[in-house]
């Protein structure tokens, strides 16, 4: 396949970026999108030029690193996949493909296609955990969990923190991500004890990072590679109202 790539290049967070155009003449349709970038970078190295920086790790759709905004869609037009799981056979010979980094104020570009997603880590640190004492694990059957709760928690837990929801949202809202974490933990008995603090603190951290506000456009759930549903956001809203208006538990500011 012949592909023309227009890729965002930026030397550092401070400097202005630009698009570089590359022509690739020998792309195998079985390659993944990242392998195509490997070919490009090999070519650039041989020409003595700086290769394109991009994030990746597992290359099997589970780590969430491979953030690329491809032809106007996060992770490309194919639904339910990350960039590493997108294959060149979904493009046509002669296509021009535009690749940009995630765009959001809380996710500044570090270099080329690499953005800083540490706001997600800080949101998790604000409450996306359960406090457990160390020691030997309990017998699994000593805490009963309804099948529907365990399924819902598991679905939410499949969020890989890739940030495609933020990238897709016209408001750069992180609510799909945050709500998935809240739903994952607060559904289960082990997580319920801290649900009030979790809701308040995670929402506060999300706001402090400067993400936008959900307007229910639903773009996030369409683009989420893990099929996280927007109903988690509505659950999070209820969880937040409950924490603020109903619970008598005081949460320190």
């Amino acid at each position: 396949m012949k592909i023309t790539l227009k890729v965002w290049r930026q030397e550092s967070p401070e400097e202005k970026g630009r698009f570089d155009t590359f022509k690739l003449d020998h792309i195998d349709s079985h390659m993944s999108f990242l392998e195509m970038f490997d070919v490009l970078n090999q070519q650039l190295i041989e020409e003595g030029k700086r290769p394109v920086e991009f994030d990746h790790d597992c290359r099997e759709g589970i780590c969430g690193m491979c953030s690329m905004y491809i032809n106007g869609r996060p992770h490309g037009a194919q639904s339910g996949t990350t960039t590493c799981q997108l294959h060149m056979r979904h493009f046509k010979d002669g296509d021009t493909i535009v690749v940009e980094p995630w765009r959001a104020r809380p996710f500044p570009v570090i270099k080329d296609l690499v953005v800083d997603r540490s706001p997600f880590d800080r949101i998790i640190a604000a409450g996306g955990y359960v406090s457990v004492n160390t020691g030997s694990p309990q017998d699994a059957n000593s805490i009963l969990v309804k099948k529907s709760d365990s399924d819902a928690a598991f679905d939410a837990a499949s969020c890989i923190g890739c940030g495609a929801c933020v990238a897709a949202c016209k408001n750069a809202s992180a609510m799909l991500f945050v709500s998935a974490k809240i739903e994952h933990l607060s559904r289960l008995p082990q997580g319920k004890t801290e649900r009030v603090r979790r809701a308040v603190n995670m929402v506060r951290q999300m706001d402090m990072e400067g993400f936008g506000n959900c307007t229910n456009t639903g773009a996030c759930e369409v683009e989420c590679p893990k099929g996280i549903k927007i109903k988690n956001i509505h659950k999070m809203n209820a969880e937040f109202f409950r924490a603020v208006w109903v619970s008598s538990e005081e949460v320190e500011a």
Partner: protein
Amino acid sequence: MSWLKGFFNSSIGRKFIMALTGLFLILFLTEHMIANLLLILPDNGVIYNQYSHFMVTFPLIRVVEILLFASIIFHIIYALVLTYRNRQARPVKYAVRKPGENSSWVSRNMGFLGLILFIFLAIHLAGFFAKARITHDLGMVTINGVEMHDVYSLVKAKFEIWWFDLIYIIGFIALGAHLWHGFYSSFRTLGLRHPKYLPLFKGIGIFISVIIPLGFAVVPIYFLINSLS
């Protein structure tokens, strides 16, 4: 009270205000639309004028009116705040965008539709509310021995002007589009996610976003057609 302040300064708290004020406005619009249909009764406005006289003289309605204006003001203020913050959250735009592939046009243009509604509202209030309630720049009628404003004739005169009707029709289309997304969205903002009831609210939202603008549109169209024949 820091929890209260924290709530109203949070993203979810701000959206909560948008949703509540929006729903209250819908409640008002429903009443307004149904009452307006009294205008097309073939009685030369007797019943409509009596209704409108009742509305300005009944004290409880004053209270509701204050609530209504507060809702509009807060809805607009929070719309501005949220839209500003949402724009701030993405200072650098994408070069290639395909938003139509993951979301509906109305859901992405609530602010734009709101702006049209705001302009419409200004025209509407200046044309009717200001005349009937502030400048008292309209005729009087006596019905059953009670002297009252002849709002009916004011409405009739205005709606016989075709371009004035056109402004209204545009306003109603924008309203329908705003509600198409807004009604359903507000319940989800308020935390409703029940798999049995949520689809019901989606259906009601679609229904009202068609029926409210249609009901409103009947009145100007009725007066325009009458004036032609």
